[in-house]
């Protein structure tokens, strides 16, 4: 198994601007996180808002540089502040954002959304761009008739499919999914999760799946990392983390997740009647 993504001691600080009366400060968003993901596997990153999981996503997708630490993609060290970000590298890593309503340009037709990455990469003639976009539309469960439509004509689940299609246009090896299903309804969520699983099998994709929903993580992840205030407090295989959570925060998280099985409902009703 080859390791697609490896992070060693990633740190990201944000400088707060000082004003006339206030001194600037430093926010430590990510405080030394290390992990590695093998090809074709899914790493889930769990944590509440403000724990640094989206900051980490931006670093992994080469949007923001890390303050310190080393990032390896397919075994090659990458530092975007030193101009390592080539078009070839950009092709390797793609991202799907949380809100499918915000991540698509309302004035851009779906066809243009999907072909834009190919235009930027160059070397692909127009008819081939169109053909590849049509193929990708079918892959994600949409049709050729959607090519000339605008984003507002689609539902949330369909838009998320478009966002996934756009991310896959360049055949990346690593896909960072930043809360891809948390804005979707339960039944649509199931469809999108199925789609992601199918695509992973077909293209042998590696996923970094960011979520705060433990039931989704349990379903899709091979490995789980729990973040809390910028630190990775728990990191292990799915079985290990779910069977035997070590850190107090992970335990709190598990305890807070609503349980929808009849046994826990019965227990709750019994408690209520006793009170």
């Amino acid at each position: 198994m080859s390791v697609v993504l490896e992070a060693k001691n990633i740190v990201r600080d944000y400088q707060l601007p000082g004003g006339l009366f206030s001194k600037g400060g430093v926010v430590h968003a990510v405080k030394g996180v290390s992990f590695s993901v093998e090809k074709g596997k899914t790493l889930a990153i769990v944590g509440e808002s403000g724990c640094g999981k989206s900051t980490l996503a931006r670093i992994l997708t080469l949007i923001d540089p890390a303050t310190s630490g080393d990032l390896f993609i397919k075994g090659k060290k990458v530092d975007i502040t030193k101009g390592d970000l080539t078009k070839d590298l950009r092709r390797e890593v793609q991202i799907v954002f949380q809100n499918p309503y915000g991540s698509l340009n309302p004035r851009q037709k779906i066809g243009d959304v999907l072909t834009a990455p190919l235009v930027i990469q160059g070397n692909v003639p127009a008819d081939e761009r169109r053909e590849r976009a049509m193929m990708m539309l079918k892959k994600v469960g949409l049709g050729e008739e959607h090519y000339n439509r605008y984003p507002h004509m689609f539902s949330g689940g369909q838009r998320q499919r478009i966002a996934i299609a756009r991310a896959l246009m360049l055949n990346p090896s690593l896909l960072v999914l930043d809360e891809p299903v948390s804005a979707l309804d339960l039944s649509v969520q199931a469809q999108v999760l199925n789609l992601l699983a199918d695509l992973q099998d077909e293209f042998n994709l590696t996923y970094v799946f960011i979520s705060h929903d433990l039931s989704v993580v349990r379903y899709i992840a091979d490995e789980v990392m729990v973040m809390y205030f910028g630190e990775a407090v728990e990191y292990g295989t799915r079985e290990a983390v779910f069977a035997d959570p070590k850190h107090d925060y992970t335990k709190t998280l598990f305890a807070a997740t609503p349980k929808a099985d009849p046994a826990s409902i019965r227990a709750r009703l019994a408690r209520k009647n006793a009170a």
Partner: protein
Amino acid sequence: MALLEIENLVVEFQTTTGMFRAVDGVSLKVDQREVLAIVGESGSGKSVSMLAVMGLLPWTAKVTADKMTFNGRDLLTLSDAERRKIVGKDIAMIFQEPIASLNPCYTVGFQIEEVLRFHLGLGRKERRARAIELLTAVGIPNPAERLDSFPHQMSGGQCQRVMIAMAIACNPKLLIADEPTTALDVTIQKQILDLLVKLQAEHGMGMIMITHNMGVVAETADRVVVQYKGRKMEEADVLSLFENPRSNYTKALLAALPDNATGDRLPTIADYFKDGSEIAGAAVS
């Protein structure tokens, strides 16, 4: 006598292409001290039916029902002025986005005290004392100081607590919570749900919990109504709904929970209706 009783509620919206029916013949009842959960996906009409009860729908909406009574009073024939005396006092509502539902220009203390002045006519000192009492009840530390905070100075969970404080300010008989925890983290969600259930038991309120999250239903409800495309699919007490769902739609919803995944693929709603049977035809009354 039931606290809230709705029979055959229909809500239609005027659109450029004709009337759109958002709620199609929904009947439900809430008793005192009861927690009713209304579950459904977006577009199932669960929020719209409750907004109709509150009288908060825009003028393009046409509301008809065979019966809509609250505490023995007919809500359909109520004048606007009379309705305003009930809404916010005897029926209170909490909305999904806590930060968006507070006015950013006023302190939270002002907004809580406004409710007390309008509905109860309390004097300035009494209002202040009651507001502090309410913030203490919803678990906000340093309540006396926090009254002078603006919404942007508080976190999402704290804003939702302020919304709850405003809602229970006049000891309502019915509390409608419209997706109260959807915008919040799981750990905060747990705290808010526990708080709502505790307040509901303490004050003996009836509560309607609108949600799309089956976990929230399991953790709070006594009875559940499942809605789909404006129609009621199923009504059952919470235990039998999870143990023994009758309508195909409920079965599909439960199967789509990643918790219940048995194979590699999650079943979707479509898997349950492969034969093309009309989903509404599968409804159990």
